[in-house]
């Protein structure tokens, strides 16, 4: 189960993620991002309520990061310790801007 709450404001986009970002739910986030990122220069992903992430979720984050490297910037916020550990072992902690 993944809940995505989207907030668009000019060229800023915020996505609050709630639940699990896994092989089954990641395509939902991917589709949402693809549909929203046009013209966005500042993307924020709020992970406060994100409980779980697997390689399928990381894949979506990496694609978004690649897009945002061209368009502007991407920030990941409120990352739990457990998810932070996954970012660390996969080198994502160096790729993502984590607040």
């Amino acid at each position, binding site marked *: 189960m993944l809940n995505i709450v989207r907030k668009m404001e000019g060229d800023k986009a915020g996505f609050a993620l709630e639940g699990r970002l896994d*092989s089954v739910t990641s395509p939902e986030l991917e589709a949402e991002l693809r549909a929203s990122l046009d013209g966005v220069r500042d993307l924020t992903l709020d992970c406060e309520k994100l409980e779980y992430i*697997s*390689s399928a979720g990381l894949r979506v984050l990496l694609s978004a990061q690649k897009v945002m490297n061209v368009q502007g910037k991407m920030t990941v916020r409120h990352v739990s310790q457990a998810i932070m550990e996954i970012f660390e072992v996969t080198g994502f902690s160096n*790729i993502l801007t984590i607040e």
Partner: protein
Amino acid sequence: MSVIKLSGRIDSNNSSRIEAGILEQLALTDEPGTKAVELDAGELEYISSAGLRVLLRIRKTHPDMVIRNVSTEVYDILEMTGFTEMIKVEKAYRVVSIKGCEEIGRGANGTIYRIDEDNVVKVYNNADALEDIQHEREVAKLALILGIPTAISYDVVRVGDSYGSVFELLNARSFSKILSTEPEKMDWCVKEYVGLLKKIHGTVVPAGKLPDMKETALSWAGFLRDYLPQEAGAKLVRLVEEIPHDNHMIHGDYHTKNVELQNDEVLLIDMDTLSVGHPVFELAFMFNSFIGYSEFDHEIIKKFQGFDSETGATFWRKSLAAYLGTDCQTKIREVEDKARILGYTRMIRRAIRKNGLSTESGRAEIEFWKRELLELLEKTDTLLFSFNELDIEAVAENLAEVQSFVDGILESIGCPPKARMNIDVAVEEIFINIASYAYAPEKGKATVRVEVSEDPVTVTITFVDHGVPYDPLAKKDPDIGLPADERVIGGLGVFMTKKMVDDMSYLYDTGRNILTLRKKL
């Protein structure tokens, strides 16, 4: 047979006179070669050792001696002196009326009424129930000694033309009553009900003490064989035959009217069906109680349990989930289907034996159950099930099912949340790999087995599939030091799995990919 009345007191003052009187009467009434005599002790108040010696002497010529109608006081003397072991002694039965008493339970062999605030009586259907009563008392004693909380009857009484056994049951309410009147207590009931069930199934019974449910089930299957298509009938018998002997206790009629809450204690009653056997038998009877019997006619359950069929079905599913320790629907359905096979077998046999085939409604019901049974037999290869192994179609949509199955076991061993998430990630990566590549473009099954070992607590998860050989360990690790733009999208799954667990191994054996993950908690 001669019947001789004993009355008043028999002691050394009058014993020789009474003996002479008895011998005189026997000489008159005995038929040639007779060995039996019945002594009616209804009016006997006391008997001393001199009187007991009289009885022994009479027994020499009449070895089939019975003493009936014995008062409690005299019975105590006979019991203390060991006479009840040598001579058949029957107590005088107190007479109890159930007029206006509340019915609190009904089972296969009798009905339970509350006779006063502290006591209930179970009135047996069978008019000649003394042996049943004796049996139930013996098995209840056995269960109590083995640690199962139950009530043991302390008296046998006459209720009209039937026999009854009396139990102490104070302020007790059955779980059926609680579910009917306080539906918000459903989850509490499930927890207690399953807790007691696990206790019963965890109890080892010494050999020969209780009947073997497998024998009974075999006789049902044998009976039903004649009413099923040849192949299906043979399969049913084979499936039951293949259930191994099991010396663990099963109650045999474990529904919510037989579980009572007395003060704060949960008690098991109606012990006459106590047996040993594989838990699938118990689950079959439970399925029948909550769903099976009322599956064709939903109104039936209300009369029997006091709650409606929806409550029954919810309670059953929740109980089965709690019993199996999982929310994984695939697992729950798998076990339910096995229980249903035995459940339908029992119900169809019962209906046929009650002449169900001679009425239209009976035939409709039997046909309904038979259709279900045949469909289940078609897709079932064993009635055995395990708590730690899941067979599931390897498709991505089943990921949540697999994870919930693994999580159920992790939860039962108190796995910390972080380790649980790591294991969940590893399980996902491997399962999704199988789902994506093992059988593509076809579909196939995967087996997931979870084992826990001690010292230190270690979880071992094994995945087996029959797809194309694939060794994930042969894959090169990605370079995780690269900046985002140079990193390839994907290819992280196996690498992450390795990082999430302590050990990962792969084996290809006789057409099977066997992948094992090990993590210390």
